[in-house]
């Protein structure tokens, strides 16, 4: 019983102590990057490197491109991460720094025999004008169409590229996946599924033994080399955005991502750095 008041006192003081601690850390420069989860791996890898070499504290958080923008406007982050083009209104409010681009792969289950698809095939599949894999030389099984959920950058990239209407995007869906990992999970467990995802994510998943594979798109092999020389047609830019001229740690992070070491890290994550 003697201990109880002590514990109570500690429980009251501890949160206060922790929060002041947090404030102090803010003062000693913490770079907070929030937004597109596609950009997150790059930020994460750069953070490790910068902590080691410069003692800089970089913290990355997901939440989607639009959150990256809104946090930037309201000052809740140091840099916002975006995986889609900014709208003209958005562009007028922030400074935009392209850091890399990312190929978008068309993913199927490894048991699926099809060689590849074209943009037109994708349109017909995602409009349910073609519903069986036999039309593409595969098995006679109905195609399970996987989309990313509304608000995700890849969904918009896919929609703009194929020219599907928002209505078609919602009407002809079999599965809506929340995050990238869920797209992989669904396709790995559904042998007739098709989806779209960052090339790097699929390569990583296939390396770890998930039964997913990329297919040729418009006749182009889905490999990093083809994304780099821009023969692979479906890709999207990755941006970091800043409300004003980036200073201090934000500047260091941006400069690092454009340095040769930074570019090597971006390549390592299966993204293509800007030359």
């Amino acid at each position, binding site marked *: 019983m003697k201990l109880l008041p002590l514990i109570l006192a500690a429980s009251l003081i501890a949160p206060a102590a922790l929060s002041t601690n947090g404030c102090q850390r803010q003062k000693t420069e913490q770079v907070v990057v929030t937004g597109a989860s596609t950009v997150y791996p790059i930020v994460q890898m750069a953070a490790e490197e910068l902590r080691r070499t410069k003692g800089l504290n970089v913290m990355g958080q997901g939440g989607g491109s639009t959150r990256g923008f809104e946090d930037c406007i309201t000052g809740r982050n140091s840099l916002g991460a975006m995986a889609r083009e900014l709208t003209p209104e958005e562009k007028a409010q922030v400074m935009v720094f392209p850091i890399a681009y990312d190929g978008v792969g068309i993913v199927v289950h490894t048991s699926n025999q099809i060689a590849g698809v074209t943009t037109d095939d994708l349109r017909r599949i995602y409009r349910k004008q073609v519903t069986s894999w036999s039309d593409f030389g595969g098995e006679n099984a109905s195609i399970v169409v996987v989309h990313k959920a509304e608000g995700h950058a890849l969904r918009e990239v896919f929609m703009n590229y194929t020219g599907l209407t928002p209505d078609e995007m919602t009407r002809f869906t*079999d*599965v809506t996946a*929340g995050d990238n990992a869920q797209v992989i999970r669904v396709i790995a*467990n559904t042998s007739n599924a098709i989806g779209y995802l960052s090339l790097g994510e699929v390569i990583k998943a296939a390396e770890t033994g998930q039964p997913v594979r990329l297919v040729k798109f418009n006749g182009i092999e889905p490999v990093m080399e083809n994304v780099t020389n821009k023969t692979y047609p479906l890709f999207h830019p990755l941006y970091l955005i800043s409300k004003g001229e980036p200073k201090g740690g934000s500047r260091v992070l941006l400069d690092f991502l454009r340095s040769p070491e930074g570019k090597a890290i971006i390549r390592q994550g299966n993204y293509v750095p800007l030359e």
Partner: protein
Amino acid sequence: MFRWNKTRWCWAGAMGLGLVPILAIFALAIFLFWNAAGASAQIGIRELAATEWSPQQGRYGVALLLAGTLAVSALALCLAVPVALCAAGYLALSAGGKVRAAANAAIGLLGGIPSVVIGLWAMTWVVPGFGNSWISASVVLALMIVPTITLLSGAALRLVPADLLEASRALGMSEGIVARVAFHHARWGILGAVVLGTSRALGEAVAVSMVAGNVASWPSLTRPIATLTTTLIVELDGAAGLHRNALYLLACIVLLAISALSIFGRAAQRKAGI
């Protein structure tokens, strides 16, 4: 004269800590209602009652999501209640002590399995058979609420006085009739169990989102379906602005429904004396 002695300090501290959960639930409710109220004012009640949920196009009709939630929960109940009541009846009325203890432990364990684990299992075992569909979602949900209903209605059945059952048997009634007597006596407790199971079904999100397909459409057994909670879980990550607030509104609806059901379920259980 009032003096702050050690005992009083301890009690004051304990009371303070006891208030924490209550304050937390109020903070949560206020946060959700605040955001949801903003969203509903901006969207408008008529638009909310519509069937089209398509945030990209500024459409926030929750009717289909609500229908999906009700459909998935209703079918899950149809699957779970017979199984759970039979199991509870057997365990409470006829099983031996060892069997009952072992079965209750196993059922409790099933109830404690994290929903993401059940979801992963269902993706490899249920989805290949039924597809990402209403029926898959309900099967998964049924699996998750069977333990709740079995254990709670089992508790209600064990409260039936033994002399009532013995008297029935002494009158030469068959075991079927004895079971009816027991179930009749325990009906309020069983109703409470089913209602509390339903409230768990309404709130479940992770496992269901892994097998439901999460597409807002009119419920059809083999077609994908979206519920309030699955929409929340797949869209929250990428949502901002009004879209995010609209998702808080969905959370608010779920919270209200679950609170109402919990109050009703507890009331039924209290009437049964549990």
